[in-house]
């Protein structure tokens, strides 16, 4: 924890509280619309699919698929020490997409990571402080 030297988000307690509470317990919580049954991300108080305001929080599988990625050779703060590292967009099993730093890949071999586009990925959490755990994703497929 004291050695977590990356930017720590300030959780928005008004819109995203269940998400960050879930992360502390190692769970991926997602907003789901009870009118059209679709999940969305980032969390909103209105469904971006159908416009309903009937949103409830649901625990997700924590699984998704690699959509695209980049290898970051330049970064600031704690991330500068990690460079090169891989950032990625993950298509959630439940639908919609999240951004992350991807684990389980070799940043010096981007051509190999290209072959992993579409591969199964799983979420994991780093405890960044007493209040915040930050989600990361790992290629497992």
């Amino acid at each position, binding site marked *: 924890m004291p050695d977590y030297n990356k930017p720590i988000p300030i959780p928005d307690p008004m819109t995203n509280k269940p998400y960050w509470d879930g992360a502390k317990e190692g769970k991926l919580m997602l907003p789901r619309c009870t009118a059209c049954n679709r999940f969305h991300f980032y969390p909103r108080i209105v*469904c971006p699919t*159908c416009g309903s305001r009937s949103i409830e929080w649901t625990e997700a599988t924590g699984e998704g698929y690699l959509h695209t*990625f980049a290898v970051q050779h330049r970064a600031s703060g704690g991330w500068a020490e990690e460079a090169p590292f891989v950032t990625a967009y993950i298509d959630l099993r439940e639908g919609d997409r999240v951004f992350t730093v991807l684990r389980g890949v070799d940043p010096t071999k981007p051509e190999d990571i290209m072959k992993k586009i579409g591969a199964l990925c799983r979420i994991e959490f780093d405890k960044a402080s007493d209040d915040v755990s930050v989600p990361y994703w790992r290629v497992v497929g």
Partner: protein
Amino acid sequence: MPSNPSKSAAIVAAAEADEIGYLSSPKTDMMLGIEAIHNACREAGISTKDIEGIANPGGANSYAEYLGIVPKWVDTTAVGGCSFQIHVAHMLAAVNAGMLDIGVVVNGQAGYSRRNFPRGAAGGGGGDALGPDAQFMAPYGVMGAPSNYSHAMTRHMHQWGSTKEDFAQIAVSTREWAMLNPRAIMHSKDTNPNGGALTVDDVLNSRIISWPLNILDICLVTDHGGAVIIASEAAARSFRTPPVWIAGAGEAIGHATMLEMKDFTATSAAASAGRAYKMAGMGPEDMEMAMIYDSFTITVAITAEMLGLTKRGEGPSLFAGGRTAPGGSFPVNTNGGGLSFNHSGMYGMQLLVEAYRQLSRTAEDGIHGLAGKQTDADSCIVNGTGGSLSATGTLVLTR
């Protein structure tokens, strides 16, 4: 001829957020604005999905994204407390012109709740610490536009089989134009140690910033000032300078954060260009040159596809074989582009200035262009891209 917009639009509903005043439980600006929109739509008997245009001082893109809609009319005019009256006036004119049928003017402002936001999250202006970028992207070390756009390039390579070599051709073609522009940063070795002739290998061997983007795939960071004068048809004909007609115009927003970019190989330029072409009564086949915002080589490739200049996935091929370079049959980015001429942060102005010079036949005046820079194009499509491949504005200009 334009018609009188009087009575061509009406206010059909008005509503407020669920609670207003001193909220016991705080809400963000966005929550308050969304509640008001939702309530107004309910009063009007429509869905938020029926909204085609949004006006808000500075935040129209975030509202659109939040609602999950892709507006075809936006107004972010931000001139203080009277902004909303002005938004209504603009929307009236736009409705009269047939640009939209249903629009909303919105504002949410947590003037009181703000004091109860988490420490470090309050304060106006700048980045929003409670917004999606700060919550869900910034923790992962992305740094500026290059580290974001690279994901789109990777996806283009995956989805369409393009290569880094293909994209490098864009930088090479653009550099050839810069070599004809004495004011371009990369005009020559005299203007910059890295200026002058460029090869595909030079691009591929340049420093890697955010794979697959090398530094020569990325625009410059420079100073610039520019302006264009626009006049009515009657007035324009009385100027002694040659007119360049705004034959078509379109605007669109695909998303605000890249989290919401559904297809990383497509931008809203397809929509904004579609409208511009339609207004002009012209199509891609009628364009004789293009000025395309080149923040990155990937931006140009995707935009060329969206403008209908190539098929989907084949954007880089437009730049093969010298077709877009000086002397080629379809000149693109004849000023040397953001890649090799000048990119001051918001490069759309540079696009307009060069498009005017080309179509007014003043592109080769010795100061802004040397022999060979002036094309004989009678039409030009101009496309600006803003944000993270987020918003686009397209113009069709003609002589």
